[in-house]
């Protein structure tokens, strides 16, 4: 039987980037094939080409042996290709049913036949054992159900080949296991599956074959059972990678951050943080593990003054900073590496120099008479560029022209150089390549070794386990457990992240 998908010699360029370069990629019928690569390696681009969202500059695509030209998603869908994107493509105010049928609506005359739609959705939901509430509004359902809706969207259109882009980013370890079971069941029903991921553990547990992509080129295609995590890591990055972080013993001092019974509302006026008690000491890294959406963001926003707390106390170095403005929090010695560098961390249309002083722009050291001294500002930025090895032609270029890794380096440089007593790092390595990740990790450990306190919030469990001295797990707005790093296993953390009780599960 010919390969169900064959992509030959695919090339695709964007301004300044050769995203795909002569890529050959095949998928056999009934297999789960992983596309493995770092952030920015070109895997999503390749699949977007397969799904018709991009057009390749060179190369051909064959579906079940026949050459095809996929110029838009409708054509991909007609060939039985379905895609579940990394960031869900769901219309929030619509119902589950409306989201599934959009673009393929059953009709009754000129009108929508919503009754038939509901029936159809419930039918395929049962057939593939993907439980969803057909009448629920997407805004209100859980992340797990949203993912099932996304998968149903593809099956509703008769997908035989499913592409899943980073499907496990939003799941607990247990939910990842469940996803694995769903995928195997789909394969049994005759589907073929392409998984895009950068997570080595999932490759080993979920796939039959794996293709490694680096800098737009295919490095190798292997049978999963013939390889191991270290080999994959090396092929993915191009050099030997130490998968653990080097750090000395912690030298813990007094608490620098104390949170007492903190309650914070989210932007829908519901309680997102439901009474959190937490302490971070000088000289330690406290990591908060948890699946996205359990109140971590609201917690960070309340600490850094970007959100109001409903009740409770936040103390930095003994000083009460609850409900102070972001400016007052900064002046109290708190640094913040925000989770969204484009939204919060940088003003993309400002130069690097102007971004370097964001937060300390009021300081006397940048003044000249009544106004700002751009000479001093640029000098300062040049210092940061040198010390933190930021790759840029000069400090005058706009922040938007830097790569993600260098943008993050500037943010880290700015926050750390201000010598904070407490640093809050939220998803500090999201979207970065391995080199930049190593750099950020080194800097955070350096801060901790200098006797500062670091609060690390991350969705990457490995990162939390590698860097933290103590790990707190957040579930449903509460801290459900705090473990010393040496007692923390992925299994234990995973159970707590899903709201379970570690004692019962052991």
């Amino acid at each position, binding site marked *: 039987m010919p390969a169900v998908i064959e992509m030959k010699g695919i090339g695709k*360029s*964007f301004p300044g980037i050769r995203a795909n*370069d002569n890529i050959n990629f095949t998928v056999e019928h009934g297999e789960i094939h992983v596309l493995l690569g770092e952030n920015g390696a070109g895997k999503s681009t390749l699949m977007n080409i397969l799904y018709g969202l991009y057009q390749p500059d060179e190369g051909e695509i064959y579906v079940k042996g026949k050459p095809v030209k996929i110029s838009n998603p409708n054509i991909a869908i007609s060939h039985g290709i379905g895609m579940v994107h990394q960031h869900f493509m769901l219309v929030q105010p619509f119902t589950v049913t409306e989201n599934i049928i959009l673009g393929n609506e059953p009709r009754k005359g000129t009108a929508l036949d919503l009754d038939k739609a509901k029936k159809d959705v419930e039918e395929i939901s049962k057939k593939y054992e993907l439980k969803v509430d057909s009448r629920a509004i997407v805004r209100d359902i859980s992340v797990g159900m949203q993912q099932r809706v996304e998968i149903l969207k593809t099956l509703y259109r008769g997908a035989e080949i499913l592409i899943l882009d980073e499907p496990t980013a939003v799941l607990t370890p247990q939910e990842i296991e469940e996803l694995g079971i769903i995928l195997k069941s789909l394969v049994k029903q005759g589907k073929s599956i392409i998984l895009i991921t950068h997570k080595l553990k999932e490759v080993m547990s979920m796939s039959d074959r794996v293709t490694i992509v680096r800098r737009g080129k295919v490095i190798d295609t292997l049978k999963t059972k013939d390889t191991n995590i270290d080999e994959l890591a090396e092929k993915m990055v191009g050099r030997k990678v130490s998968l653990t972080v080097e750090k000395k013993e912690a030298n813990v001092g007094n608490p620098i951050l104390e949170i007492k019974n903190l309650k914070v509302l989210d932007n829908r006026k519901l309680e997102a943080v439901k009474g959190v008690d937490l302490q971070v000491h000088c000289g330690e890294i406290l990591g908060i593990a948890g699946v996205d959406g359990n109140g971590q963001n609201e917690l960070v926003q309340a600490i850094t003054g970007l959100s109001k707390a409903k009740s409770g106390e936040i103390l930095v170095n003994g000083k009460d900073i609850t409900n102070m403005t972001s400016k007052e929090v900064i002046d109290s010695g708190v640094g913040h590496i925000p989770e969204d560098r484009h939204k919060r961390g940088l*003003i993309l249309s400002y130069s690097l120099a102007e971004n370097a002083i964001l937060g300390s722009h009021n300081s006397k050291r940048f003044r000249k008479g009544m106004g700002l001294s751009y000479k001093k500002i640029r000098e300062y930025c040049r210092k940061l560029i040198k010390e933190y090895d930021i790759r840029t032609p000069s400090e005058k270029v706009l922040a938007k022209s830097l790569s993600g890794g260098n943008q993050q380096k500037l943010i880290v440089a700015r926050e750390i150089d201000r010598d904070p007593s407490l640093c809050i790092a939220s998803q500090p390595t999201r979207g970065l390549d391995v080199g930049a990740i190593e750099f950020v990790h080194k800097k955070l450990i350096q801060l901790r070794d200098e006797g500062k306190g670091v609060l690390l919030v991350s969705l990457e469990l490995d990162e939390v386990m590698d860097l933290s001295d103590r790990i707190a797990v957040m579930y449903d707005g509460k801290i459900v457990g705090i473990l010393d790093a040496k007692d923390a296993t992925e299994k234990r953390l995973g159970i707590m992240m899903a709201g379970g009780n570690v004692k019962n599960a052991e």
Partner: protein
Amino acid sequence: MESRKNELKDSIINTLKEIAYPLIAILISFIAGGILVYSFGKSPVVAYTALIKGSFGDWNKFGETLVTVTPLILTGLSIAFGFKCNLFNIGAEGQFIMGAVAAAWAGWAFTGLPAILHVTLTLLVGAAVGGLWASIIGWLKAKIGSHEVINGIMLNYIALHMSNYIVMTLLNEPQKAYSVAIADTAKLWRFSQAFSQFKHSRMNTGIIIALVVALAVYYLLNKTVRGYEIRAVGFNPDAAEYGGINVKKNIILAMLISGLFAGLAGAIMTTGVQYRVNSLFGFTGYGLDGISVALVGNNHPIGVILSAFLFGILQKGGPQMQIQGIPKEVVGIIQGIIILFVASNLVRVIVENIKQKKELKKTALKEGVE
């Protein structure tokens, strides 16, 4: 080593870069206007020469052109300043009207003051009222999230009717459809008082005030902490908040400052040109024209000055074109086309398209990028 000269050179180069796109748009629009004139059977050369003659033909005409340019610079600055904070101060027209009538009141009510004091006071009152009128919009946007365009337009109409009410009741010149006149001590000095060349024009010191304000705006926006914060809020309010900047305060402040300029424009119109306020049938047009001026000037103070001169020439040269047999409404259409071009970023989009295609070719040839 940074030197003073280098910084100045950088500022000039940056300024030139910023006004390049609008200049090209203007060029294209004049060509389009020329084609329009030609289609009416008239010569574009005659038309455009008439424009220049009508606006700069002699000292008096020059003076009158400056009289028109002055409010355009200020309302242009008003709107440009708003845009730097990502606010569309379409309410500049209403702020102009309120500034004008407030100045009429201050010019009439405070008698017995020495001229220097009275003029300054009158102008300040006009600017302040404009600023307050604008801060309503700013407050509504900051505290409630209400859109500044709709509120601005509504306040324009409210200002129009309010001004008419005041002119016909509180400040009314009995049995007339205009207000009382301001005292002589409140009037801006006219060039005709010293230079006979300007004998027949109303050119006054307002133009100097406007130019000084433009320079002050440049300094405020680019060299001060307040300017840094306002521009930051304009580009990315979330990042600004993260950086400790009070977003709400800056939005209100930006609108207030913006309103000061528009109010000042109205005040100068009263103290320098009209010496009173008329009952208005419709909008003065200065606020609306300010939008065009700001857009074409790319929201840069120097660009605004040049752009204000451009529109001043178009407006003042119109009647001369009429004499040559070309309907002066053509000017309005040229204006409309210019704005459409600039608004659609036509030139910028085309240039960036070309740049991208060149980048694309470059990377397709290279193998892998850092």
